């Protein structure tokens, strides 16, 4: 826009951010950092200023921090108009207006969508309403669950052994509470890291006194006379008495409010290009609507231009920064968001980190350390190249494997490394479950191919 309109945008434009959490806040800060002086409106359906979610399943459940004290540190003043506690309910792309649930409308020159995901609820609504049944996504969820754990329940049931479910189970054990984990797959974390690593995770659960049940589904939650949950029924015919249930079945993308807007938004998220610009339903890239964070789905050149949806903290930050940068840049100065996915978790006293896309891997090789000691590096291979890596208490080496992924280095790694053990001489099948058998939601979703690929279809909500 050599006509000076970019300067005008920077000076007196209107930018609206929908979703006032991690990605929204970091985008706003970046906009101000890059010299945006116009009006900035932050729309968030939660009544709170941006807060951090990872502590909710860790420090908060352990009683080491309260859910109220997880506010995100501010990098700088953002001087925004805050519209908190009101969801955005619609988008008029032609008129460039965001509709709010309270009837208001907010005009924009550039829109940033960072509405994230929400916890997938227990499918049976009446059972989900039972007192004592929780999900864990928001500050209120965290505060409520922590309070209930404080009260000393007799047994907690966690449904779903993904990262969040495993962290919840770990926190319960650390508090000395009895906990059962029910997982439909064969092991915890199996959807994200495969069966080889899942087996290590299963051992961690059991050694720490978790009653881990795999290959089963919870079929029904049963309430007592007072409307409190009292038992759960399993697909293997057994029944478990429990007074707290945490449903940890993955997430759903917050895109329903965009139904009918003409934006390429659906249950898998909002498709955007590598520069964070959203596609419309026709697959044509927009110029004024940007997306970042858990709700975004963007193509990645390192992973065959697959569209990746990542539920990763670091991705939300990096993508928000890129989106904000591109929002204020001439097309030639725009940057792609080609962040190598990276994720961490901590459970049962073990620090777990991953880079790349392990779930694309077909084989794994333990290149350093040993599974038995729970201190190791596993490298994932896909079609003869390194595609991902995971470390258990061994994260200082991770940067190297990240570079291997970036360099599309060959798999199995042809060189020796320090701390190579006997069982790490050869790759083995990574053992991911058949994707048609659902576990809890994965933390990485792959879908479709490049925009040039005919197989890609956008499915707007409600169709």
């Amino acid at each position, binding site marked *: 826009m050599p006509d000076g309109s970019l300067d005008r945008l920077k000076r007196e434009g209107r930018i609206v951010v929908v979703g006032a959490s991690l990605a929204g806040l970091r985008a706003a800060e970046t906009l101000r950092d890059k010299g945006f002086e116009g009006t900035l409106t932050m729309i968030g359906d939660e009544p709170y200023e941006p807060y951090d979610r990872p502590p909710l399943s860790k420090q908060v459940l352990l009683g080491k921090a309260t859910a109220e004290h997880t506010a995100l540190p501010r990098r700088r003043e953002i001087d925004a108009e805050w519209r908190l506690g009101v969801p955005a309910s619609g988008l008029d792309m032609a008129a460039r207006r965001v509709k709010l649930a309270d009837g208001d409308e907010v005009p924009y020159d550039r829109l940033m969508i960072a509405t994230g995901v929400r916890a997938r609820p227990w499918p049976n609504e009446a059972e989900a309403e039972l007192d004592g049944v929780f999900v864990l996504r928001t500050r209120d969820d965290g505060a409520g669950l922590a309070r209930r754990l404080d009260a000393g329940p007799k047994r907690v049931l966690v449904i779903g052994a993904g990262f969040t479910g495993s962290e919840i189970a770990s926190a319960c054990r650390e508090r000395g509470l009895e906990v059962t984990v029910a997982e439909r797959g064969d092991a915890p974390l199996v959807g994200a890291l495969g069966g080889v690593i899942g087996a290590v995770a299963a051992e961690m659960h059991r050694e720490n006194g978790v009653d881990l049940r795999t290959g089963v589904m919870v079929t029904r939650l049963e309430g007592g006379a007072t409307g409190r949950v009292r038992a759960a029924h399993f697909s293997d015919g057994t029944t478990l008495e429990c007074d707290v249930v945490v449903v940890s079945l993955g997430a759903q993308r917050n895109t329903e409010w965009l139904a009918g807007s003409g934006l390429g938004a659906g249950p898998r998220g909002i498709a955007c290009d590598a520069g964070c610009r959203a596609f419309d339903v026709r697959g044509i890239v927009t110029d004024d609507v940007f997306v970042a964070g858990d709700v975004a789905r963007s193509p990645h050149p390192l992973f065959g231009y697959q569209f990746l949806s990542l539920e990763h903290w670091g991705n939300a930050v990096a993508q928000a920064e890129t989106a904000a940068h591109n929002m204020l840049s001439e097309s030639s100065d725009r940057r792609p968001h080609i962040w190598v996915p990276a994720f961490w978790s901590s459970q049962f006293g073990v620090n777990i980190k991953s880079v790349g896309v392990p779930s694309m891997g077909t084989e794994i090789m333990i290149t*350093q350390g040993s599974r038995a000691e729970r*201190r190791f590096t596993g490298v994932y291979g896909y079609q003869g190249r390194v595609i991902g890596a995971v470390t258990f208490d061994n994260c*200082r080496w991770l*940067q*190297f494997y990240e570079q291997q992924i970036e360099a599309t280095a060959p798999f199995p790694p042809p060189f*020796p490394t*320090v*701390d190579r053990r006997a069982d790490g001489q050869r790759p083995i099948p990574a053992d991911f479950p058949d994707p048609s058998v659902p576990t809890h939601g994965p933390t990485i979703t792959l879908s479709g191919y490049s925009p040039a690929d005919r197989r890609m279809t956008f499915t707007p909500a409600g169709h």
Partner: protein
Amino acid sequence: MAEGILKQILDYSNRANPYPLYEELRKTPVFHDGTGPYVISTYHDIQSLLHDPRLSSDAHNLTATAGDPLADDEGGGGGEEAALPPSFLKLDPPEHDRLRRMTNRPFGPPHSPHRIDGMRGDLHGIVSGLIDNLGDPGRIDLVDQFAYPFPVTMICRLLGVPREDEPRFHSWADTIAAGLDPDPDADPAERLRVTHDARMELGMYLAGLIEERRKNPQDDMLSELAAGHGQDDTMSTMELLSTSALLLIAGHETTVNLITNGMLTLLRHPDVLADLRENPELAVPLVEELLRYEPPVQLLPQRTPLVDIEVRGVTIPKGSSMWLVLASGNRDPDRFENPDRFDPYRKDIQHLGLGSGIHSCFGAPLARLEAQLALSELARRLENPRLIEDPPPYRQNAVLRGPRHLEITCDGIRP
């Protein structure tokens, strides 16, 4: 590329300001003069090599040390029996991880999260006492009177080593540290012998203390290390000796330079010194910038590849000696804006001063706190301090670089 640049870096006459030489060195990011070590000098290369699992810190994997002026053989392939087994500084995982983990148990989180912070009062008391006793403000040697005794007193207290014994272990520590220094005039065999003797004597001295602690445990690290925690998690006596020797020496020979380099830098930047006097919290970013600008450990001479590796198109053969010049990486303009400017207000100070990766400085939390307290107290209490001699005389050592003396004068000492 100037031949002999390594010689120049090691040459004492360049000790006060090696930075122009590093700049020269960075023009050949993987420098090799045909016989000596492969020298890596840019930030990103060093950073990634520090995380490269194909590099070993174990001298047993070195095959070609010919021509490397820093090659020593603590526990290495040298013919002589080593006095103590190598410390975890010179081991690879899993041994490294096991020893470092056990050493960390009485030192830091998760088992001892408050150890360092709990020493704040102690640290403050020692700093105040030393400043109270500086004597004639007209002529102060900041090294002898402050920067050396402070960390030494502290490491003694932390480990449980009697402060009165300092004159004894001081000379051993000095000898061992000097072993790192390539003195071109010294006879290598003789130097090796002297270093080994010092390690042996230090080991015997520590063995006595540890024996005593086994009988009479106190609230100090030696007692806790000696006690161990269960079968798998106990150090052998020899491991215990080399670990405590490492802690004692590292606690001696590095923080002293950090504090001295820090004061020297502040005296050369009076505006920053004045700012620190008003805002003691500036000490936190200031120490980080110091670790970038004048790191006490200038280079890591102890790495070798387990297989031929390629760095910037240069093949470094398996078993070669490699130097990672941290101090050069810290001044790399590809990484830091205006790298030669001392700027404690910098937002981006991800320096290499404490290393990175699994061998990153074990004592960092203590060293940081010591330097922060020392510098902010000196800034607060010394009235109008000035350098008497600039540059000051340096210690011989090119690796553990810092002034031997720092003579200053000031108008008085505030209470």
